[in-house]
């Protein structure tokens, strides 16, 4: 029974991720693609030599290729977040299915994108030295893992301290722990500033804001859609004949 619930939530998570991916794709296409084209125009204007024919045309990259990447990313994170949701359900405090989904999505946006982004922001074409690619890739993934683990640790810490300090002070302490540890990671991990000479600062700024808008769209839509789907599954509307439904365990254990 429980295993079926997990499977159903996983499927709904992936569908919600797909829906979120579609809207993120719209934002990417209209808000971010023009910036990519500007960056490529800069790159070509400043390239010393340009190698051969393209394997995939720009038209395909900015449509089919973009859609593949964003939708797969949406489905994959939708599935992962749904699994995290199965775990978080009833364990993060007194939140119903919908509120839990939105909270989880906010935490996902924060931990998976915003925190790593502040250290290793997205770069448009023309920005970035191919020689440091390996290092940048490893550090970017490291930063995501670190950020997710520290977020989970901060939540657990907050829950543990809540009994002794009360919710407010425990949350402040958990937040301080997170800021301190992430701050240390920011301070000690290497940084990269590889914008070429003369690359427009406004373009870089707009590009990075656009990537943030894509992620904000993705996670917000995910949280809202998945919340509705999860609530329908976990707390169906008709209130008849539901002896074993969530109500049975409704009174949460005080912690």
């Amino acid at each position, binding site marked *: 029974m429980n295993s079926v619930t997990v499977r159903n939530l*996983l499927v709904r998570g992936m569908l919600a991720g797909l829906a979120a991916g579609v809207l993120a794709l719209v934002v990417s296409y209209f808000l971010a693609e023009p910036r990519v084209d500007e960056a490529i125009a800069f790159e070509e204007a400043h390239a010393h030599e340009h190698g051969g024919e393209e394997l*995939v045309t720009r038209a395909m*990259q900015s449509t089919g290729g*973009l859609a593949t990447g964003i939708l797969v990313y949406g489905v994959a994170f939708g599935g992962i977040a749904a699994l995290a949701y199965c775990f978080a359900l009833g364990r993060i405090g007194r939140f119903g299915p919908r509120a839990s989904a939105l909270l989880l999505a906010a935490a996902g946006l924060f931990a998976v994108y915003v925190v790593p982004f502040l250290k290793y922001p997205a770069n448009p074409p023309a920005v970035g030295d191919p020689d440091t*690619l390996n290092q940048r890739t490893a550090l970017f993934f490291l930063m995501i893992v670190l950020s997710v683990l520290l977020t989970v640790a901060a939540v657990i810490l907050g829950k543990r301290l809540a009994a002794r300090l009360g919710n407010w002070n425990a949350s402040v302490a958990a937040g301080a722990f997170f800021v301190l540890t992430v701050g240390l990671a920011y301070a000690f991990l290497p940084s990269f500033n590889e914008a070429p000479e003369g690359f427009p600062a406004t373009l870089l700024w707009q590009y990075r804001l656009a990537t943030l808008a894509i992620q904000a769209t993705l996670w917000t839509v995910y949280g809202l859609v998945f919340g509705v789907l999860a609530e329908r599954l*976990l707390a169906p509307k008709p209130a008849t004949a539901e002896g074993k439904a969530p109500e049975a365990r409704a009174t949460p254990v005080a912690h």
Partner: protein
Amino acid sequence: MAQSAVAQPTATTPAVPAKLPIGAIAPWAVFFGILMLVLLYFVGAEQGATSLVSGEGVHEWVHDARHLLGFPCH
């Protein structure tokens, strides 16, 4: 007094859902978790820092998505 005022809306708002046992989540988390991470790897890093499939096709196809999702691309 305050108790009853708070308890009132629980009749309409959904109750706190039951916890799902870790044992029921684990198998799904392991298999699908890894599958999802493989998908993310192909979107985010294949034929960049590391390469499982030879050539540049995957990299070039997801090039824009990789840039816009924040992954280091080149």
